[in-house]
């Protein structure tokens, strides 16, 4: 690259800078003869003069008319092989792309507890627990039907919809036209649903204060979902409490469940240290 000095050039014509007036709030070009907006009165206006070179590291650096090939040796691409310009042979079907060895920034959330709740004859109990690694996207709103609300103390740790837990339906008989062309419905008195709580929201000690409430409610139209706080504020005629569980008495829980819960917390702790 040459750093030849250009001939000194005359500075550009000095122009009278337009005065900055109050900042207009609207386009006014539907009126004729509107003045140009001055963005920065310290800057010049364009003129017909040649451009004044600026100094780069105290030098005037201009592009040569006929630049010579680069002589760089390090960190350069390999020379173009002669075969590059020939039609390359199509390879076989490619396999999977290769994941990065460095997984990059960890996704938000190290894991969550998947707690299986059992509703049996109006009573809500915990029937299983599992730790699942990875982020958890909690629900943002709730929709008509069944909704659970999970708190530890006063803090809400999870909520969400429970679609379709109450019925068992036989599929329609494809060859029938009478009643068996529909479902045979069996109402369930016992059913399960899942509560998912981010692992950072709960400790082995605090889970003993877990309170879960299951509501049934009638909402508005399709897509008109509401927040859980709005749901709780609904009048009782609109929201029916189907059952609740206040506290998780681990000491009196079945041994298998105790083991499962301990295992889940162990995995959560291990995940936190990874």
């Amino acid at each position: 690259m040459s750093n030849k000095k250009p001939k000194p050039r005359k500075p550009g014509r000095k122009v009278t800078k337009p005065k900055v007036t109050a900042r207009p709030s609207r386009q006014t070009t539907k009126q004729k003869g509107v003045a140009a907006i001055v963005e920065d009165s310290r800057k010049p206006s364009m003129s017909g003069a040649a451009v004044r070179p600026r100094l780069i590291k105290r030098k005037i650096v201009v592009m040569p008319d006929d630049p010579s090939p680069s002589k760089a040796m390090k960190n350069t691409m390999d020379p173009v092989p002669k075969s590059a310009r020939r039609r390359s042979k199509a390879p076989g079907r490619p396999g999977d792309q290769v994941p990065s060895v460095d997984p990059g920034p960890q996704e938000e959330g190290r894991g969550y507890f998947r707690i299986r709740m059992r509703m049996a004859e109006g009573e809500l109990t915990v029937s299983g627990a599992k730790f699942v690694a990875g982020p958890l996207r909690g629900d943002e709103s709730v929709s008509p039907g069944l909704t659970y609300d999970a708190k530890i103390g006063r803090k809400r740790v999870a909520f969400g919809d429970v679609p379709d837990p109450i019925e068992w339906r036989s599929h329609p008989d494809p060859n029938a036209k009478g009643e068996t062309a529909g479902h045979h419905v069996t109402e369930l008195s016992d059913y399960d649903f899942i509560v998912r709580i981010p692992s950072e929201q709960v400790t082995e000690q605090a889970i003993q204060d877990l309170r879960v409430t299951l509501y049934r409610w009638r909402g508005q139209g399709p897509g008109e979902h509401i927040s859980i706080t709005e749901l709780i504020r609904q009048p009782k005629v609109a929201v029916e409490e189907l059952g609740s569980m206040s506290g998780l008495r681990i000491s009196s829980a079945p041994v298998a469940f105790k083991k499962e819960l301990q295992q889940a917390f162990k995995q959560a702790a291990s995940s936190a240290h990874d």
Partner: protein
Amino acid sequence: MPDSVTQILKSGPPGTKKNIAVLGDGFAAGDQDDYNDKVRELLTDGVFANDYFYEDAQAFNIYRVNLISNDSGVSQRVYDEQGTPTDRTDDTIVSTTIKDTALGYIYSGSWAHCWLESGANTANLVNDALDTWVPDYDLVVVILNEDRGGGCGGGNSQIVTKGSSWAVMAHEFGHGTGGLSDEYCKKGAYTGAEPGAVNVTTNTNRNTLKWRKFIKPTTPIPTGVNPDPTAIGSCTAWTVGAKPADWDSSQSVGLFEGGRTKASGVYRPVINCRMRGNAPPYCPVCYTELKTKMHPATGHSFLKTYVGDFNGDGKDDVLIHNGNSILIYRSDGSQLDIAFSAVERVPGSWQFKPGDRFYVGDFNGDGKDEVVVYNSTNWNQEYLGLLADDGNGGLKLIRRYDDSMPGWQFQKDDKFYVADFDGNGRDDLYVFNGANWSIPYVGMLRSNGTSFTLVKRYDGTMPGWQMRPGDSHSVGDFSGDGKEELLVFNGDDWSIPYLGMMRSNGSSLSMARRFDGTLPGWQMRPGDRQYVGDFNGDGKSDVYLFNGDDWSIAYLGMFISMDSWLHLAQRYDGNVPGWQMRKNDNHWVGDSGDGRSDLFVYNHQDWGPEYLGVMVSNGHGVTASWKEDWVGEWNLGTNDQFEVCDFEGVGVRRNLFVHNQNWFGIIRATPNLSLLKIYYKWIHNYRYGRNW
């Protein structure tokens, strides 16, 4: 053969998606292909290849668990139904034949017994299998190795046979994911309170009806009334006056008596939705509920959209990229409709990632656009793929380059420009890298329709041009010979700015003209922005030059290409007729319809309200018109992005796709800026009403 799991739909981490676990019972080792085929038929090619679930596949993961049963086929039970197949209370067991299967289900073929039942240890076996093989699950599908029909669903589970259809499964998923009610009818009156499900109601008041926003004012309410509930036990269709000729039985919304398994006293939205008849698509009410529920899990937004005419009908379509999925919506000239949905990968294979960059062009000259996709950030090396028509309106990978191609080593900051540099009707690629090597490089990658070949590489210099990292490029055919070349600008790396017009001979570039510091009537500055378009309609690309940063006022220049010279046609100092220029004006080249390239201009920073304008060229100057704050129903905002296109298929790019996180609009430029369409959160054309 041990038990195993295969994730057949990979949308994301299980805690962020709805997870479907599929288990098989009664499939011995030799039956596993049969099981896999059935899973594909029911889910991949069935539920998730149609209407709602196709569009929102990105909200779901599917885990196929292959459980090896010792016996082939499931246990059987025979009932004596006493001639009353709908009443199970008088049934007696005739025989039970037990087989040694993974889950112990027993098939009976009796409707009243839900076609099948659990064995003594089935619940534990199912739970053990799920805990072992699936990290998390919301829905469980069990497929029995039984050829006869039937199935049993509820409680977020479905147990089906090989005789089951995907349409019934999709209906059941309406219960399990949307909390939707049945819409079919049997004899009897509903006497309960207002149901919680969004798709059935007892309310006949138009003003308070929960799906009122989808009902045309001229549609009578109720629309269908059961004339004799004591005698008629089926769903009521249109009964009130004459049915409009264009009434669609699954998509036109009214209020029809019958639903929730009863023939009277309760109403449904349409004559026949999937929640009634299984086979029709979901009605607008059910569709909207499913979309609203699952939208957060899809992760869909309108932020990354790309224009292309993917079916070659002359109307520009849109490709939307979200994380590991793409959706293509096809234009019919007045609206967009879903044409293709792919999650995680397309056949070939290309696995989509958030860092994918898309370049659309007709790389094989067939009149349909293909897609070059490049990823330099999400894998352990760079990948470049060529995606082409799969023959079914979608895309498949036809060529992939891993890390390099002969003569070009891909790097993180490679920049690609679509251009037909050899004028053969097939788009090619220019590639520039000024950041990752000791010297900058430009490559010319020629397309033969199925692959790319490097025909020329410039290492550090091009004829008459010393490359620098700050070089920026535009593409145009400045000589009008059908070969697209590069316009290269550097305002930062030298003491004066430079603009070079390159000339392509199809396999290399030469310098047609270099402008050092000045153009005729224009002092170049670092903040100059070039917009290439044929604004005088002579078949040669011209150049609009804008600078809003470096002077006290903003300038716009129009430079006519004269082969190897740029002639100043017009310079606007501060104002264009009809538009006060400001420093943060943003421009896109379009065409309002006269064959001369115009400029769309948008400014959301320098005024109180936002302005969208169009500067229409008369060949040597422009005049502008604009809309303030709103274009029809579109409220212009700071996060709006614009893509110029020919959505209407009129032969000129007079339309703009305008989009942000949740909104997508289509604007027409002439005769005035007007809004043609607006979509919120998802693209769907309701026959009446909309989802907000």
